[in-house]
């Protein structure tokens, strides 16, 4: 699908003035994208569990209903967890947004085409699963609207952002899983995180 959006520009725009937004990023390029935007204690970039990003976002959104949660993931990662869209549709968390950065490629394995390259419509899947809103975004104006959606509009929200398929330098987050978990909990809960 035609687009002139670049993934890092999109993610930078979504995370601008992020305040206390909590961010889960799926395995692969989106984990590097959120790190390129600035590593943050309230970011949980995944190095594994492909297909789980949206469900981690759901568990977090249910645990902290007064805080905003954003899942940023790729089309390949989302395709591996399509059922989780249905599960989110049942729970209907108002504070959760899921945004798929869709380059129609598996970026980490050699840029092979994903199902979205053949026209599989994730926005329609999210609509059918019961998301409150589901948008297809292909231009900068649409990206500006997504910032408002993520930070304030009642969800569950979904967006599929078509981006240019490009190989760009990796910007890696910390690799140690227990560290990523512990820093997130301390930033969110404070010292009580260690006593739970």
């Amino acid at each position, binding site marked *: 699908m035609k687009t002139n959006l670049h993934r890092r520009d999109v993610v930078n725009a979504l995370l601008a003035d992020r305040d206390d937004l*909590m961010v*889960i990023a799926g395995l692969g390029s989106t984990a590097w994208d959120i790190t390129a935007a600035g590593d943050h204690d309230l970011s*949980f970039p*995944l*190095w*594994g*569990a*492909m*297909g*789980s*990003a*949206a*469900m*981690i*976002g*759901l*568990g*977090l*959104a*249910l*645990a*902290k209903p007064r805080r905003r949660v954003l899942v940023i993931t790729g089309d390949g990662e989302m395709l591996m*967890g399509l*059922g*989780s869209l*249905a*599960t989110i549709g*049942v*729970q209907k968390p108002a504070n959760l947004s899921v945004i798929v950065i869709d380059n129609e490629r598996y970026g980490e394995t050699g840029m092979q085409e994903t199902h979205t390259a053949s026209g599989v419509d994730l926005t329609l899947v999210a609509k059918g699963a019961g998301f409150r809103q589901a948008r297809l975004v292909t231009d900068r104006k649409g990206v500006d609207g997504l910032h408002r959606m993520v930070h304030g509009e009642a969800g569950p929200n979904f967006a599929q952002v078509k981006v240019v398929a490009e190989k760009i330098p990796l910007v890696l987050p910390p690799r140690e*899983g*227990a560290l*990523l*978990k512990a820093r*997130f*909990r301390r930033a*969110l*809960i404070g010292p*009580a*995180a260690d006593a*739970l």
Partner: protein
Amino acid sequence: MKAKTVVDWPLDLHKVLTETGVRQVAYVPDAGHKRLIELCRADKKMRAVVLTTEEEGLGLVMGAWLGGEKSAVLMQSSGVGNVINTLGTIKECRFPLLMLITMRGDEGEFNPWQVPMGQATQTVLEAMGVIVKRIGTAEEAGPVASAAARLAYNSYAAVAVLISQRLIGIKSFQDQASR
């Protein structure tokens, strides 16, 4: 002769979840867990989250813990086959995990297609570093589950409790369908 007391083991398991402070309960509909699922769904202090596949439950557990909430996953032993890769992330990040698993393909199984996964369940879990405890009788359910929950949350460990098919007592397809 002393009258035989019937132990309400799903109620005992629900009590353990309450005492543990579990707030999110993920489940895939299951005949063996039918009553426990109903108890959790009726409990206003718990959010019962129905899944399309068991690995979603492990994602939910991770997110809940990041947000400061305890959780549990209810599944059948066949579901263990669906969570193996995700267990790797649970282990690497040291997320506490409590799984209550009803056995199939074990004692008195009527469906031969359940047997391979049922027989491999404990081995597969242990290969992924999960601590496995077994409940063989209704009387054991509460104490074993309670110890497992404390192990999971005191040690940041992944713990599975395998509930014997003897407790579930389903003998045929007709029997299962009638429940």
